[in-house]
């Protein structure tokens, strides 16, 4: 339910006039909130969510904990709610372990694993506001990002 209104503040003596207050329901920041959307997909890709494999399409929602899988000719591009972008190439396995984008409580984390295949990642607001909080783990390395864009390839 949304009611629109305007608010006017008179400054100076510190007196405040509230003309109309606006009410709308806030979505809140629960852990079940989607963290990203599939933007590009060729020809197909799947995710494993809570043990169940689901095929994706452009516009599909991505949640924390999802394992993203592509086959030998697949690619998938995801844009996250902080504006960061992750693209996975063929034969890839990527797990989004921990994603927190809560500016009100200043909780910012983005931890993922690239277990195989190739990935490009471009930083978004999480990295901009909390440099070093975006991390990728691979079978042989841990990567900490500060701004920028990277390619990760796991052979």
């Amino acid at each position: 339910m949304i009611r629109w209104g305007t608010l006017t503040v008179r400054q100076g003596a510190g007196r405040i006039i509230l003309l109309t207050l606006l009410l709308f329901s806030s979505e809140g920041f629960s852990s079940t909130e989607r963290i990203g959307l599939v933007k590009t997909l060729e020809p197909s890709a799947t995710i494993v969510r809570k043990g169940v494999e689901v095929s994706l399409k452009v516009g599909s929602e991505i949640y924390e904990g999802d394992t993203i899988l592509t086959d030998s000719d697949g690619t998938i591009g995801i844009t996250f709610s902080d504006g960061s972008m992750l693209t996975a190439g063929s034969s890839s396995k990527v797990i989004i372990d921990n994603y927190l984008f809560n500016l009100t409580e200043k909780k910012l984390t983005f931890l993922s694993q690239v277990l195989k295949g190739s990935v490009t990642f471009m930083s978004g607001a999480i990295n901009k506001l909390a440099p070093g909080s975006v991390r990728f783990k691979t079978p042989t390395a841990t990567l900490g990002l500060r701004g920028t864009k990277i390619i990760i390839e796991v052979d």
Partner: protein
Amino acid sequence: MNSQRFMIIPFISFLAACTSTTVVLLPDSDGNVGQVEMITDSGTTVLNKAYESSEAEKQKLSSTPNVLLSKEIVRDKYGDILAKEPLIPEHFKFYFKTGKADLQAEAQEMLLKSKARIEERKSCDLSVIGHTDRVENDDLNYLLSMVRAANVAKALVDLGIPLNCMDIRYYGESYPVIPTLDDVAEPLNRRVEIEIR
């Protein structure tokens, strides 16, 4: 069955020994180059130049020096995946008078530009994000940022952008573009940003 298992185990350990990670640092869409810290069994290396690359192999005790690749080599090697990246998010900003949440006259042109981009990108993934400067107190600014964001969101809805394609966020004075002391008026901080993803 037992004899088959004997065959599989050495094969798996061979694969694990060959695992390697290659990282390439690229400039972002604005041309900025940040840095990546790579921690491996053999130590920590930092990449901070455009097209700098490093490799980490399993159980390798000495670190391999970083390599500087060229834009062309990166394009040849990773062109396929780079071509499949999503469109870069776009941002539009709206500014407000001190203590006010109503849209200024020049907002209309920006709204129409935003609508055009939303439609061209076929995006149903927007954020409308409200902010204030540091005049007045935190609580009031939080409310003010909410109403500013709501007014921009409503203007988009009035232009035909579906409400279910946007989320509305508001942060009061917490995230200035230009940090100031308290009670300082700063026009560039009194803003609503539309992010089109």
